[in-house]
């Protein structure tokens, strides 16, 4: 009984830690930008206003794509929840599991502070390092949902090449990680 409570507490604290790091990450970004903005304002008011205007227009420029991508992500996240993912790439999923891990990682876009604890949980529940490493790598490097957006910035050829190369690399990287973890 005492052990269960202990484990529960551990997982609670680590989730809390993730949130703190996630917030810190954004907080640092805000601090850096605000400091730069302040310096810019002190140095040249007109130029700063111009920067503000340019930034705003750039936001408006990709807003339609943002909205589309966010809706796609919302639907995908609802369909591919933790249980579905663990069923596909959990313990004993084998070579097919590795392949599925790559595909799942490619189509989903989960923030790191959700994906890593999930991946850690799967790993502790017996999922293979190979599957988990493939999933994590493709999750971060391959973005099918954001592909339309990437194409508009980099063209079809470069965007497709990047995602394809990243997917292939995810499998190769997973073998290396599995080997290194098993050393």
């Amino acid at each position, binding site marked *: 009984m005492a052990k269960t409570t202990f484990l529960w507490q551990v997982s609670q604290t680590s989730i809390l830690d993730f949130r703190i790091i996630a917030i810190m990450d954004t907080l*640092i970004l805000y601090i850096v930008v605000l400091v730069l903005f302040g310096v810019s304002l002190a140095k040249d008011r007109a130029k700063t206003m111009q920067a503000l205007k340019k930034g705003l227009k750039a936001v408006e420029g990709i807003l339609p794509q943002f909205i589309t991508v966010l809706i796609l992500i919302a639907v995908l996240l609802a369909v591919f929840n933790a249980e579905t993912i663990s069923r596909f790439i959990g313990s004993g999923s084998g070579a097919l599991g590795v392949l599925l891990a790559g595909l799942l990682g490619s189509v989903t876009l989960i923030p790191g502070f959700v994906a890593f604890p999930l991946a850690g949980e799967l790993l502790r529940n017996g999922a293979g390092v190979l599957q988990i490493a493939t999933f994590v790598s493709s999750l971060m490097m391959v973005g099918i949902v954001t592909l339309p957006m990437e194409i508009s910035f980099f063209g079809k050829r470069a965007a497709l090449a990047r995602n394809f190369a990243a997917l292939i690399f995810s499998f190769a990287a997973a073998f290396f990680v599995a080997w290194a973890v098993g050393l």
Partner: protein
Amino acid sequence: MKTVLKRYRAAIVALAGFIVFLIAAPDLAPKATASLAAQIKTMLLIVPPIFLLLGLLDVWVPREIMMKFMGPGCGIKGPLIAFALGSAAAGPLYGAFPVASMLMKKGASFINILIFIGAWSTTKIPMLLFEMQSLGYRFALARLAIDLVGIVVIAFAIKAVVPQKEIDRIYAEAEERGVKK
């Protein structure tokens, strides 16, 4: 007005599709709406500082400086800066695209842009901390090591398959995006 509608066409279609999804799969609806709310929250949090930074970069960093540090023929310091910029970033990969576009407009070389995108996607320092905590030091550091190699390999692979003409077109578009907006 007509152009606004045209620009938002995909977004409107997606929104309509979302509503259809909510009706068709009522059991998934609460999850989907909660997830959409979380996504919007992330976007609202991350997007403003990134775009303010973009505006400041555009106004304050002259093309010559960017060329010198990240342009073609800048030597090893270009990729190192690209790695550092990408790894220090916050937010999902889609935040990297407009930043990359601005770097292109300012004259950073294509290889450095690709390295920057690669670093942003997978070697972000805050993410590494998460990864170490949940998957262990060995897992995270092994992945970091192979990623550093992979990012460079992928960058050169993309450069090899994309013709120079297409690269010029991408740069011209980045330039136009900067001027127009």
